[in-house]
């Protein structure tokens, strides 16, 4: 984040605070003696444009992520899932993601799905994420901010989206080639598509974070 961007934000009224719903699983919560908390592995915080919010990740994501020894969390931004609606657009949602990120015990990887990818990208412009994962981005800002602290960025899209204009512009903005997963952009939470997608993300996370 540039000094100018910060100064501008520090002079803009803060979005109204909301009580945010955060779902999380820690490795110890899985009660599996084979799974140990890995102090070297960055925690993960997810968000999605799906109206279910954090709950969408309950089906399989949080469990899968936690089983790699990481703290796995998900946040519902204002108006989603169990988080009450409140004023504010894109920026307020990015604020919600940053506010959730700072409550994670350690520097977190942000994973955003659909509109959530846009919020996560904006959040990563203010908060030094340990990594930024954009899954099937929608309504993505034309010029996303440069992520603070230069985290690694992963773009994952469904095969059907891989040629879309939106995906190309995200690719250009971050200079990363997209990975593709089989299946549609919306069946990412359970089933075979979800498994393939999670495999891709987790193996990307493994060596770096």
């Amino acid at each position, binding site marked *: 984040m540039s000094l100018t961007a*910060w100064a*501008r934000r*520090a002079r803009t009224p803060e979005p109204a605070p909301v009580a945010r719903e955060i779902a999380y699983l820690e490795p110890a919560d899985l009660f599996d003696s084979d799974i140990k908390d890995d102090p070297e592995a960055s925690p993960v915080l997810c968000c999605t444009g799906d109206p279910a919010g954090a709950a969408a990740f309950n089906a399989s994501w949080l469990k899968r992520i936690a089983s790699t020894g990481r703290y796995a969390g998900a946040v519902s931004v204002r108006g989603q899932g169990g988080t009450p609606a409140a004023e504010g657009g894109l920026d307020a949602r990015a604020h919600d993601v940053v*506010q959730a990120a700072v409550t994670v015990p350690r520097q977190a990887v942000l994973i955003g799905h659909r509109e959530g990818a846009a919020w996560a990208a904006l959040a990563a412009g203010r908060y030094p994420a340990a990594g930024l994962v954009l899954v099937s981005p929608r309504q993505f800002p034309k010029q996303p901010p440069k992520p603070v602290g230069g985290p690694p960025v992963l773009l994952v899209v469904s095969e059907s989206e891989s040629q879309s204009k939106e995906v190309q512009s995200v690719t250009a903005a971050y200079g990363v080639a997209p990975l593709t997963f089989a299946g549609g952009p919306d069946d990412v939470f359970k089933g075979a598509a979800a498994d393939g997608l999670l495999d891709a993300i987790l193996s990307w996370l493994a060596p770096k974070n």
Partner: protein
Amino acid sequence: MQEYSSQAAYDRGEAVCVIGAGASGLIAVKNLRENGFEVDCYERDTVLGGLWNPQNQHSPLYPNTHLVTSRSQTEIPDFPMPDDWPDYPSAAQMLTYLTSYAKHFGLSEHIWYGSEISHIEPVEGSRFEVVVKPAAGNAARRLRYAAVVIATGHHWEPNLPSYPGQDQYRGTVLHSSQLKDASRLRGKNVLVVGGGNSGVDIACEAAVNAAGCVHSVRRGSWHLPKYLGGEPADFALARIGARPKFLRRFLTDRLVKGPRRLAARMGIDVPDHGPAVEEPVRNGRYLEHVGDGSIRRRGEVARFDGLDVAFADGTEMRPDLVVFATGYRPKITCVSPRLLGVEDGSPFPRLLARMFSPKQETLAVVGLVEPGVGVLPIVHWQTHAIAHWLEVRRGDPERAVNFKTQVVSESAQSAAEPDGTSPRHQLAVDAEEYLASLGRIIDTLEQEPAK
């Protein structure tokens, strides 16, 4: 004979040494590490958080200390405070915040506690030898670093006045940093000397806890409430700072008209210049206590006399307790003053852009400014600049030379003599201008190297 000190220094290669684990030191460690530096941080105390940690020996916190700057203007730019915290968090919340910052970024494993740095010395050109003061019975440790960042704060050495007869005074005298507990005020006739934020806050504590409170202040200053126009005062004023120049004066005057009239009614000379020029006192309760008589204002103390205190206006009183809230003076003893640009014994370093040593490229001091606004954001950008500078210096000596010229000229601009009203204002900077200058410095450092 054992010659501990001749023990060879341990070479830490390209690592950077940060001295102090207060807010400034923590921010320095985090930002240096983010830019790829290995960092060792030394803290003389056994806890982090510096002055915000009441367990730190000599912490200057007094009863009921709250921030005087609001949350959004105080938080570190890339790690906001929880947004359900109050506008003006308490000292305890500030410590919680700094602790979670350290935890979040894994800073503790880079901090060596109980390790006071007694001396640093340039060696091999631009490197530094750092001496860690020995704990009882051990040898002093010596290490070598590529660079040193001093973050030792400037609120540890009380600035005490000396009035005629003060040495023979038989009553109790405390500096504001020694007043740990409001119960010390209970039932007493208290005299508070000094009109900065500490003096005014303590006078308010005395107004509600003590039997009587006299507040001695030697000149007028700006008194702002914590809120202006329905917003935290510093936020409201900062927003005006973003407006076109010709509007600022007008808008500021309009915003502070009420507090200004109230101060005048209470007999306080409000300085002619606006509240941005020197740090305002930010306490909305104070003038109300003056207004209801629970704080009685007096001018300067003239002398102490047995158990009595006489004021310049000829009046006298017999206090049970005198609190000197007369501020602090910077004291950096671990480095030769020459490296901080001081030749004349002054305690106030003369640094380039308020942070770089004028003599040694790999030495910087952070947090040695009084910006009248939140200090942490300023330190964040300072350390951002320092980390980039060390990076550029390492990889591209030619750019480093150009950069140095720029910093020198920036410093000349902001060195416009401090108002000179009081020595304490030598650390004062106009936040708006200083941040702009930091912005230019960072921009230059972040430019892609010319091919």
